[in-house]
């Protein structure tokens, strides 16, 4: 069953406005937080077990704890670049409840002692840019941002920064580069952003959903927040279910729910006459699960890790038996080749090579040994580069090949898709 904590009021149009938001107890948690000791908030976020909702699942409170106590100004950046294919939860949040994000961000900024934050929104998200800009204006007019917020003596300024739609700018250091006016490319780590980030100052980058969730840790307390989810994957999370299901959409569920329930009940199950074939569980970069695996896995970080995949950003892409896996991998490899920033050699050259190889299968030009080559390339792209884009391209290639090898071999032997019975050229003439 859906458990609407974050998304409780998303269906109410008035929730978008400051007035409507306040009527539904908006900014009350901020008032509460501003009376707390910032250190206590950090402790609570740690204790609540909130893990980064952008994809990596790193504990948010622990990340905050990396900030050095050196008196330098600190920046809080909200990662609203939401570029992982299949993910559209942050968009919903920014459209339906902009003030929820702003409130979560002010509380977080207060906790880490930051006087300035940016919401980095991807360029394609026009509606989000509009709603967030408008909400910021409302918040400033109401004294919720600026000097002496709610009479607490805490000052904070917040701005929207619009990216240009590059996938790589969702990587936190690339986002910092982009925000600094540089080419959106990841920076070498160490130093990590918490030590030396935006403008070389200590910087925290958190996902939209993570920041919004902080509000509910304040509202419900550590125990209240931990009421949902599992010991290591606490709370609820929004999942963007897409693909071949009857009711695709965003659904908030407690972590630890079975994927079967999410897909088959909440998202309405498969379309009539179709069978589940595979699921990409956490955005296009996460290793694919077979139907069998998908039906037994739970929606939490640990269960996914047991199957060698990730909860990622919560983008559940459901694939039914009408799909050709070679085709799908072709789409993914095209995407990663297009989005590689080109800095690190293994990724720059590897994504292009993989894309060419998969498309040579689709064109009927590949040899059987090319499958080993795809494995070799992917293995040598994993963990060898500055950021994880290289891994993001390699993981689907490896998992598709491992779990659906018969379809690839059939394609190479017969020159046509095992599922569709026709060649790529015939389909995409």
């Amino acid at each position, binding site marked *: 069953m859906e458990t609407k904590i974050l998304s409780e009021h998303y269906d109410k149009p008035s929730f978008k406005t400051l007035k409507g938001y306040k009527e539904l107890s908006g900014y009350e948690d901020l008032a509460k937080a501003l009376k707390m000791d910032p250190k206590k908030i950090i402790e609570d976020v740690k204790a609540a077990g909130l893990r980064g909702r952008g994809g990596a699942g790193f504990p948010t409170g622990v990340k905050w704890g990396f900030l050095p106590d050196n008196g330098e100004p600190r920046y809080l950046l909200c990662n609203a670049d939401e570029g992982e294919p299949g993910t559209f939860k942050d968009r919903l949040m920014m459209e339906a409840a902009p003030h929820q994000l702003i409130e979560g961000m002010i509380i977080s900024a207060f906790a880490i002692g930051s006087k300035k934050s940016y919401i980095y929104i991807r360029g394609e998200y026009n509606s989000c840019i509009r709603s967030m800009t408008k909400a910021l204006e409302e918040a400033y007019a109401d004294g919720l941002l600026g000097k002496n917020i709610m009479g607490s003596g805490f000052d904070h300024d917040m701005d929207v920064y619009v990216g240009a739609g590059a996938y790589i700018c969702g990587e936190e250091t690339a986002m910092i580069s982009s925000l600094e006016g540089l080419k959106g490319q990841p920076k070498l780590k160490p130093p990590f952003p918490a030590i030396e980030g935006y403008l070389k100052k200590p910087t925290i980058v958190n996902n939209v959903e993570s920041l919004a969730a902080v509000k509910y840790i304040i509202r419900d307390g550590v125990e209240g927040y931990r009421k949902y989810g599992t010991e290591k994957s606490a709370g609820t999370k929004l999942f963007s279910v897409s693909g071949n299901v009857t009711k695709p959409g965003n659904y908030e569920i407690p972590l630890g729910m079975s994927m079967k329930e999410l897909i088959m009940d909440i998202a309405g199950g498969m379309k009539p006459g179709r069978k589940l074939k595979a699921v990409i569980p956490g955005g296009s970069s996460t290793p694919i699960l077979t139907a069998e695996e998908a039906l037994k896995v739970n929606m939490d970080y640990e269960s996914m890790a047991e199957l060698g995949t990730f909860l990622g950003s919560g983008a559940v892409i459901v694939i039914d038996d009408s799909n050709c896996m070679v085709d799908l991998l072709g789409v993914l490899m095209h995407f990663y080749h297009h989005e590689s920033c080109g800095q690190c050699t293994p990724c720059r*050259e590897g994504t292009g090579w993989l894309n060419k190889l998969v498309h040579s299968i689709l064109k009927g030009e590949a040899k059987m040994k090319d499958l080993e080559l795809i494995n070799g390339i992917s293995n040598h792209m994993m963990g060898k580069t500055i950021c994880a884009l290289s891994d993001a391209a390699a993981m689907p290639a490896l998992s598709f090949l491992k779990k659906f090898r018969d379809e690839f071999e059939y394609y190479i032997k017969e020159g046509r898709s095992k599922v569709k019975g026709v060649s790529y050229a015939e389909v995409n003439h």
Partner: protein
Amino acid sequence: MPKLTINGTEVEVKEGATVIEAFKQMNEDIAHYCWHPGLSIAGVCRLCMIDVEGARGPQIACNTVAKEGMVVTNQSEQIKDIVKWGMDFHLINHPLDCPICDQAGECGLQEQYMKFGQYDPEMDQPKVKKRKVVDLGEKVVLDSERCILCSRCVRFTDEVSKTKELGIFNRGDRSEVGTFADKPLNNKYSLNTVDICPVGALTSKDFRFRQRVWYLKNDNTVCNGCSTGCNVKVYYNEEGLFRVTPEHNEEVNGYWMCDEGRDIYKFANKNQRLLKAKKYDGSNWQELTAGKAMQELHHSLFDDVKTNCSKVGVVFTGQYTNEEYADAMQTFKSLGVASFFEWNDTADKAGDFDDLLIRGDKNPNTKGLQDEAANHSGLKKLEDAINAVNSGQIDTIFVMAPENISVYPNYQSTYEALSKAKNFIWFGANKTDGFEKSNSQNTYLIPMKSYIEKTGTFSGAKAIQKFNYVTTIVAGALTLSEAMTLFQGKEIEFELRSKPMTSLKNNHFTLNRGKL
């Protein structure tokens, strides 16, 4: 000073040093392209992979700070495999046009493939096509297909020359180095980008296609283009010099040199040189060997100089070695000559400095000249010499002319003015094409050795630096010291010209033609 173990050997490095620096310090092989000791760390080629005991996975040595007790290896099978694949990733879109590539023979891809690669390539997909023969600026050409995007050139223009002309445009495997619109790569240090380019992507318009590098020898010397005295390597064969590249010297020039300094070799080559001595008696020019000319001067002028020493002047330029100044001034002083003059056409800019390497004084050894002259009666101005010649106060003048005449705009006019003296002896390495006329009826032009052909020291702005004989270009040329010895009627020995000179004092040189 942390101690760490690299491939089983313990090494102590300075605080804050990176692991790749430790590898370099102990001369241990490590694959890398983007790392350069004079530039910031990019960490993009991903080749300097190492296993660090206790670390989560392979790390890059260039961005890993050496710590006490660290145990590092790049000899594990895993690392060797990663490096091999890393090489392959670099090469899949590289055109492999080594037979027509100017970098062949000194190419990072060739060298490191032989050391770390040696696999059978599996890439049979079409390669990415990029721009060829891109004119980046006055001196540098880019072949984008050969480029491995190590970003060294971009970092050089960002961090060292601070001119910021270069950038990497586009992304993924479509990335290309390029210049920004309307801002070509025309800074005074642009050719350093060619030196640090590990492949044949950036080539020098001056050097490209002129010589295969394996047909060239190279030796170290000191640039004589200005008072900085950059340490350089000159590349040469029996035809002469072909190029000059910087050699690392942290105290003087770091890893760099200016573009102007790279052109100096042209003044040392035969086509720019005075090959034989010449004399003029008021109507005819006659060629003779330098030794013979000096012998004649000894017989006709030596005693005369001694008796008329007050009417003798010596003009110096800051382009000779300290040892030559000492010998020349000593010789003239012993004859009673006290009128020494300094000729420096860039004296008014002598204090200029661009805060990197280029200095306004375009002579390598002005300081050495002035210091040596201070031991005698000091130096007077060139105008004083010209005035004294015009008024007849001086009737015999010796001119130690410059070697690099590009920084002597008044070369010709000074020659003409000083040749009004009755006896006019011109020592110079450079050719004297415009010198058909001489106003003196007793003119001698004596060929001098260039900086490539002698051993000595320059007192530069940063340090007194010794440099050694590299090669012989003009066989009969002399150093000032040799000329002075001959002028005194003494003998010098000529040895086989391919033998390097060991020291200036033991100044035997060139050819087994016996004693003069």
